[in-house]
């Protein structure tokens, strides 16, 4: 069997490794347009601020791939897929496949702005290459402007604040981290970041145009007319699934690559898709959407890899779970956190610097936001994932969850790992 995986991040690597687990002899080729071996994309902000070295950012040792028989083709852009001939064209070569997996991830979404396109100091912050350039160019004199106050933008801003003179964040929404925080918690997180990171926020704003000298941006103008000096512009408004190849190949695409939610198979039986480019079904509200988070991508990669090599691992549950920290402030979120429907209720527990919001649907937990209170968050996550009826629990959820919230049988299962001694 010949397997080709396009993309070498979370989903691509998980897919390749899963195939190798189930098929010891198949030929596995991973093609990535990046010039690096698989690395931790979320770590680039840590790389930027110097918390990890470049050598520490790689997911596996370089000798690992040869030892595992996984061929990684780097710096090679796949141009097209020929579904009839079962080949892909990449660089100058044509690779044939029996099973193909698209793990193309996402591409940055750049809103229209005057005088930004083509400027050498306007960069996205999505890959190691961009992080490397920023790290090289930014220094103590740099005044950076980050467009986008979401996860990527905020991580970029945090990284930059350690090495730059000033950092301004421009966010369209009236609050930061809109995808993981509600209004109240966003306010306190913002305050914390302002104090710790000396980051200035411009909320409810967009950049309309940039001022430049030659091919360098020197300033940006906001919607309200305010002008910010700018030596480095980071474009982190958002991402869109990278579906171009799939679309060209005639696969069904609807916001992301459409797949079977259990097997990750696309509309072509020999082609699978996994990760940030693929649509999955959120088990909590049944919505079909891209859940662009690492654990989800890995699970999809594993399921796709298993299915491709004749195994039977399926996706049983997809839901967003995310943990992130800003200047030591830990934010953990999971499930449905920005829901409006009246069928959802929530409970907020505050004490000191910690904030905990639990979201319920009837007697089930469906989401949480934990700020500086993430101890044992995984127990909440497992309650969400297993759709546990909270009425069956013996303990209260508002404190740090522990095994004693469960009844004796479940508790023993947890303590003893469901094994009889």
């Amino acid at each position, binding site marked *: 069997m010949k397997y080709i995986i396009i993309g070498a991040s979370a989903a691509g690597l998980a897919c390749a490794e899963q195939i190798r687990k189930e098929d010891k002899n198949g030929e596995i080729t991973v093609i990535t347009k990046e010039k690096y071996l698989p690395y931790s*994309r979320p770590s680039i902000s840590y790389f930027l601020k110097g918390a990890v070295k470049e050598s520490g950012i790689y997911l596996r040792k370089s000798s690992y791939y040869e030892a595992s028989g996984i061929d990684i083709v780097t710096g090679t852009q796949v141009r097209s897929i020929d579904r009839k001939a079962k080949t892909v064209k990449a660089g100058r070569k044509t690779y044939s496949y029996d099973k193909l997996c698209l793990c193309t991830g996402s591409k940055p979404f750049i809103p229209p702005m005057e005088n930004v396109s083509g400027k050498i100091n306007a960069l996205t912050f999505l890959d190691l290459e961009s992080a490397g350039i920023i790290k090289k160019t930014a220094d103590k004199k740099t005044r950076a402007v980050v467009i986008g106050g979401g996860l990527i933008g905020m991580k970029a801003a945090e990284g930059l604040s350690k090495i730059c003179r000033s950092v301004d964040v421009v966010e369209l929404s009236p609050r930061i981290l809109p995808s993981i925080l509600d209004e109240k918690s966003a306010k306190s997180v913002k305050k914390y970041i302002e104090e710790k990171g000396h980051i200035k926020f411009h909320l409810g704003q967009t950049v309309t145009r940039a001022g430049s000298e030659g091919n360098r941006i020197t300033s940006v103008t906001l919607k309200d007319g305010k002008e910010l000096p700018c030596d480095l512009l980071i474009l982190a408004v958002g991402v869109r699934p990278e579906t171009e190849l799939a679309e060209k190949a005639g696969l069904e695409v609807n916001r992301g690559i459409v797949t079977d939610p259990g097997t990750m198979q696309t509309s072509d039986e020999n082609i699978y898709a996994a990760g940030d480019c693929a649509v999955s079904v959120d088990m909590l509200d049944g919505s079909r959407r891209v859940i662009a988070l690492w654990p989800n991508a890995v699970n999809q990669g594993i399921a796709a890899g298993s299915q491709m090599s004749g195994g039977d691992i399926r996706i049983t549950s997809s839901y967003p779970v995310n*943990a992130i920290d800003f200047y030591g402030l830990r934010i953990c979120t999971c499930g449905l956190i920005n829901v409006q429907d009246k069928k959802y209720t929530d409970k907020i527990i505050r004490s000191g610097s910690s904030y905990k919001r639990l979201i319920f649907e009837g007697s089930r937990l469906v989401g949480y936001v934990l700020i500086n209170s993430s101890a044992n968050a*995984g127990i909440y996550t497992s309650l969400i994932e297993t759709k546990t009826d909270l009425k069956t629990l013996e303990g209260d959820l508002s404190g740090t969850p522990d095994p004693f919230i469960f009844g004796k049988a479940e508790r023993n299962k947890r303590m003893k790992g469901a094994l009889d001694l």
Partner: protein
Amino acid sequence: MKRIYAIEELCLNCRLCEVYCKSAHSQSKDIIKANKYEEPAPVSRVTVYGDNFLSAALNCRHCDDPKCVKACITGAMTKDKKTGIVYVNEDKCIGCMTCLAVCPYGCIKEGKKAVKCDLCRNDDEPACVKNCPNHALIYAEPGGEEK
């Protein structure tokens, strides 16, 4: 593989497991220095939950199919192929705590990096088990004999 099992019927809530875990995972390996003076203060990998009436010491289950390893965004969380021990490579860990958010047992602790039980990799018997005064923690093969 051998794992640590907690027996709540025997747990005294003395929490000596935590004290000895800290010491075993400290720089000095000295119980007083580790628990009192060392900076950064070592974090206990094992946690006793409950009270004097009902308590148990919870430790990493070293799952066969660990969620924390799958969720790790940097490849720092690894399950050793030979020993089955799930451990954190501290050079790679960035402390994002995604592992903590997915561990269904609540066995990963917060620190600058993720902190978790490594079954005292260099010792025959984990420190918590060795020092439990009432044998409420046992180190055993599943389904097999104690020790």
